[in-house]
């Protein structure tokens, strides 16, 4: 009897999955993040500053090290700099497509949302290549205020505490 119940349950689960449109692991494989292609190459000889496997594993260590070098020692070379990551990997506003950090199409977020790793770099740092704040389109500003608020919810109002 118990075996029959278990079989029935798995059958129901299978039917449920088909009806709900969820991909079956056996058919489509593990879902992977769709990481956008970089818009430019670092140099003629190099695609990225380090081999892809190295970047995937250790990019956070590299930008952390570079962060301290830049902040305290004034070393502003393009190698391992967050600004240069953004310059190559996120399209410029001028390209006609505005990609913000909350978008799945944003290079950083495409993987970080998949991995469930939240980053706070872009609370302060620019999330796309920017040259002058005044040259931005109004549409971008409107989009950003909505999007960023959704990503970093404001603290509850003071009334909520008392």
């Amino acid at each position, binding site marked *: 009897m118990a075996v029959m119940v278990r079989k029935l349950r798995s059958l129901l689960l299978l039917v449920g999955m088909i009806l709900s449109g969820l991909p079956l692991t056996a058919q489509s494989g593990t879902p992977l993040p769709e990481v956008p292609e970089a818009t430019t190459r670092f140099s003629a000889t190099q695609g990225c500053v380090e081999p892809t496997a190295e970047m995937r594993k250790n990019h956070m260590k590299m930008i952390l090290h570079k962060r301290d070098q830049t902040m305290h020692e004034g070393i502003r070379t393009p190698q391992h700099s967050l600004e240069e990551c953004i310059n190559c990997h996120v399209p410029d506003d001028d390209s006609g497509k505005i990609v913000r950090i909350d978008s799945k199409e944003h290079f950083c977020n495409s993987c970080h949302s998949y991995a469930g790793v939240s980053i706070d770099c872009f609370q302060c740092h620019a999330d796309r290549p920017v040259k002058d704040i005044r040259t931005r389109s109004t549409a971008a500003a409107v989009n*950003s205020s909505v999007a960023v*608020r959704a990503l970093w919810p404001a603290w509850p109002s003071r009334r909520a505490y008392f």
Partner: protein
Amino acid sequence: MAIAPGVLLTQVALAKPADQPVSSANRWGMLIDTNKCAKGCDACVRGCETENGWGTNETRSAENQTAQWIRKVELRDKSTGFAQSLPLMCQHCEHPPCVDVCPTGASFKRADGIVLVDKHICIGCRYCMMACPYKARSFIHEDLQDQLPVAPRGKGTVESCTLCVHRVDKDGDNALPACAEACNSEGHEAFVFGDLNNPDSRISQELAKHGGTQIRADLGLNVGIRYRGI
């Protein structure tokens, strides 16, 4: 200074190689001639805003709490009625009180004398704001958007004039902070930027020739921003 063809007594200071750390061989500073500073002109303030992206993106903070990296101050002598104005920003002290009081090490002075906040370390306690005799620092009360790559800024951290450190790292002696650039483009040319350690720099020569005043020199902070005419 050439003592014979091709022989220089002192090396002309060049921008540091990009991959080398800053060194205490330099001490960056500015000399501001208040006689050239026009009353009612705020080009330096606007120039700083544009360069560093402050002044426009705090929409929910009270007006007296928004960031102010550089401000114009009007002075008036009550007995004579003589009025003058000057720009006031972080004075980049040799002995900065903000660094003394910082509990985390976020407020620090670089080897070349530029005083900065490492916002990665700043916990937003604002002791530095209380310690600063020049009211040079601001605290960010709200989530910001659209910051510029050269000046990351964010809620819960303190910020102030960086002496346009990104320009200084790039161009060294030939750098011009955005305030000075804006002043020049207005035709006032009140600012001289340069290396206080290099006796041949224009700022050192002007100071040697005409002198300069430190605001609140009595505090013994040996500031990097000097004034003339006050």
